[in-house]
């Protein structure tokens, strides 16, 4: 018999309840139980960052968090960035700056970017590179990702020049 646990948590500002087994990672719970497939599995060992989510506002690899651990806690995934007003300024910035190619690492990078800009609204290029070093991207060479984060920062700080 499986020993399933009922977990109550908040995911993208919505209350959720789900049953999971202790060995199921948060990533599996999000994707396979809650149907939130925006969060991706790249390596399942914490080395690629594709599964990045926010746990109580803190950046974590959801493959290295157990689903049972999130009892009473709040998760933000890529699906929780946009709201009824439209895309989040970070998403908008990645569109404007072509900050992705295949788009597979993008959800994790958007989440990591949110975590960065929440704590450091004006990061330097070095800050951005260091912070995103746990999020592998094989397509872009990071150049346009770094620039997209810079555009996102200026969107969020209302410091963008017109027609930048």
């Amino acid at each position, binding site marked *: 018999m499986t020993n399933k646990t009922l977990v109550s948590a908040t995911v993208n500002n919505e209350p959720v309840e789900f049953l999971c087994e202790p060995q199921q990672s948060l990533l599996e719970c999000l*994707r396979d139980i809650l149907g*939130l*497939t*925006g*969060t*991706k*599995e*790249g*390596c*399942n*060992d914490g*080395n*690629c960052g*594709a599964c990045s989510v926010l746990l109580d506002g803190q950046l974590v690899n959801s493959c290295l968090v157990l689903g049972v651990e999130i009892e009473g806690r709040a998760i933000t*995934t*890529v*699906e929780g*960035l*946009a709201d009824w007003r439209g*895309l989040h300024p970070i*998403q908008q910035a*990645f*569109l*404007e700056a*072509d900050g*992705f*190619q*295949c*788009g*597979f*690492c*993008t*959800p994790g990078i*958007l989440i990591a970017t949110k975590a960065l800009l929440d704590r450091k609204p004006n990061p330097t*290029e070095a800050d*951005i*590179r*260091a912070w*995103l*070093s*746990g*999020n*592998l*991207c*094989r*397509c*872009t*060479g*990071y*150049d*346009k*990702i*770094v620039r997209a984060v810079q555009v996102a920062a200026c969107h969020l700080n209302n410091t963008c020049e017109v027609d930048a």
Partner: protein
Amino acid sequence: MNAQEQKPFAVVGERLPRYDGADKVTGKAIFGPDVALPGMCYGFILRSPHAHARILSSDTSRAEALPGVYAVVTAADLPPAESADHRYARDNTFASDKVLYVGHAVAAVAARTPAIAEQAARLIAVEYDVLPAVTDVLAAMRDDAPILHDDMRTHSLAGHGDKPSNVASHFQHLKGDPARGFAEADVIVEREFHTATVHQGYIESHATVATWSDDGAPSNGALTIYTTTQGSFSVRDHVVWLLDLPMSNVRVVPTEVGGAFGGKNTSYLDVPAALLARKARRPVKITMPRPDVFLATGPSSGAVFRVKMGATRDGRITAAQAELYYAAGAYPGSPVGSGANVMFGPYVIPNGQIDGYDVVTNGPRVSSYRAPGGTPANFAAETLIDELAEKLGLDPLEFRLRNHAREGDERLDGGTHGHIGGIEVLQAAQTCAHYTAPLTGPNRGRGVAHTAWGNWGGRSSCALNVNGDGTVNLVTSSVDLSGTRTTIAMQAAEALQLPPERIKPSVGDTDNTGYADVSAGSRTTYATGIAAIQAAEDVIAQMRARAAALWDVPVESVAYARGVFASGADLRFTFAELAEQVTGSGGSVGSIANVDVAEWGAGFSTHIADVEVDPETGKVTLLRYTVVQDVGQAVNPAMVEGQMQGGATQGIGWALYEGYAYNEKGQMLNANFLDYKIPTALDVPLIETVIVEVPYPQHPYGVRGVGEPPIVPPPGAIANAIYRAAGIRPDHLPMTPAHLLEKLGVIES
């Protein structure tokens, strides 16, 4: 002239946002591992722990008996092979008599949950007779090497070998008289290079869902496969070939693709999933764990090069000679042929010889990786080019310019260069901000490398359908790896003379589109773009005819420009007005263009790297990096820059960090993203791009392929920069800190 008048195109050349962009930044895009079907169960593949072993027996009964298991399949479930190639493909799906690499698939299980499937797979008892393994290409060529295929004889145009060998084939290009060429040389340089096997390293693993519409009757079942692939039709071809099914009964639906770079040209999970789904009588999903991606999918060849070049004091290359030894992995098919083409590709070699060897080794069978075979060959050749320039006291770009091929010059493989922009690229590199900026500071150096890459055309299909409101649906069978929906739609918009927001592009499946080759070889924007333009021209022709009929005027009198059909002074329809008329009566307008583009423009790329070498640790830091490339005509410059930056970064990884490490048993030691080190955001600087546009005349807008050339020069450019910084010439890829310390004489090798 103002800027507006100078601009030859309305849409092409604009930095437009991507049609699929919003789905990619919101998590809505459906990639391979995201597909789920009702009633789906899960497959798991049992793989060999041995690099080389005979399978003595296998017993699946305990797996089959486990509750929750729906099906177990092995090689016995595959139809017999009908040719050598077929047998290789069949055996690479499931090993029959021998396993040839760690990770070689032996059996597969479908079960209610992934955990049960994995547990059941571990219950399959396989008895192996372990054999000696060989992973190094030169070791595999020795007389006493373990033989992978008892029936393999070296194929060569000089005749077949007479004894079993791991050398699958040998070819030779010869031009002029190399001995005479070297005799004429004032300076001769000669080196041997060793390069490791590398992986494409896409972040999305392989994933497939297979389902049979009639619940699995084997004779007439209709199979649908959802998979992440570079070519839906190539998957169909592969499945049809191995399962002996009618083409019409196999439908392949490509998902969004999370990185591919050639690695998803090959089908791995589709046949196992189809077999399991047929036996399990329900949809089966298989997702490959990351370690298996390294162990069991096709990386690019590790290789060895022996290269010799000679030049005169006035800077003319007189002769060049190279031997290329490429590890193919378990079955023949390394990219040694394209490696040979890249080797001295940009230059006029009056006397040259290249010998290429395709050698099987106990590793996964290699697949394509962005400019297959080119990067390590270019590293070898461009190191010697740099050395010649240095010995001759010439600027390295100037030396390359003096020897550069022009249109009509003969290549070493016997072909001739077409309309190429290599000289323009070198000239742009000479004058760019990076090359003209001084580089100062200790332990720093600047290097350059330059390449030619052939690109590709091939088969493509594009359908356009005009809607009643004047919008147009565009459907192609070319899988969109990094934005080609957008670049194809932009070309259609250009040809239709409509704003791009009126075009809605999508990627179809094998049931509803015409045949296309894989999205590979830098061909998609180029060749599928030609299909889109042809379809657009046909749509306009049909629309003109319909306007002529409605107006009752000769079709020749109907002109079309900037979205307006007109005849005479007063007859006028906008595209949307006419679209409303034609869809309301007489049947709607649409067109499908199927092309097989036989000619294409080669791409040239020069890279400039500034590095700093820590002489105590051997660590290389990239200070500045510039990519200069002829793209013919940039359809979407932002996306072109992205290709140049991304390709360069893969090449940087190849240069400095990446490589399969094997132990003496042939087991890979770094089958994960911790120890198979692809560059992180910290390892590369901002990558400057210089887009050179020498239009390719065979494309209506001058487009050339873009994606592959930028992966080629980084190792050469970085190696040459390291030489300037530290005085050593690296001859191994990756150029690890340990390798540099050994070259520096700081540690023993």
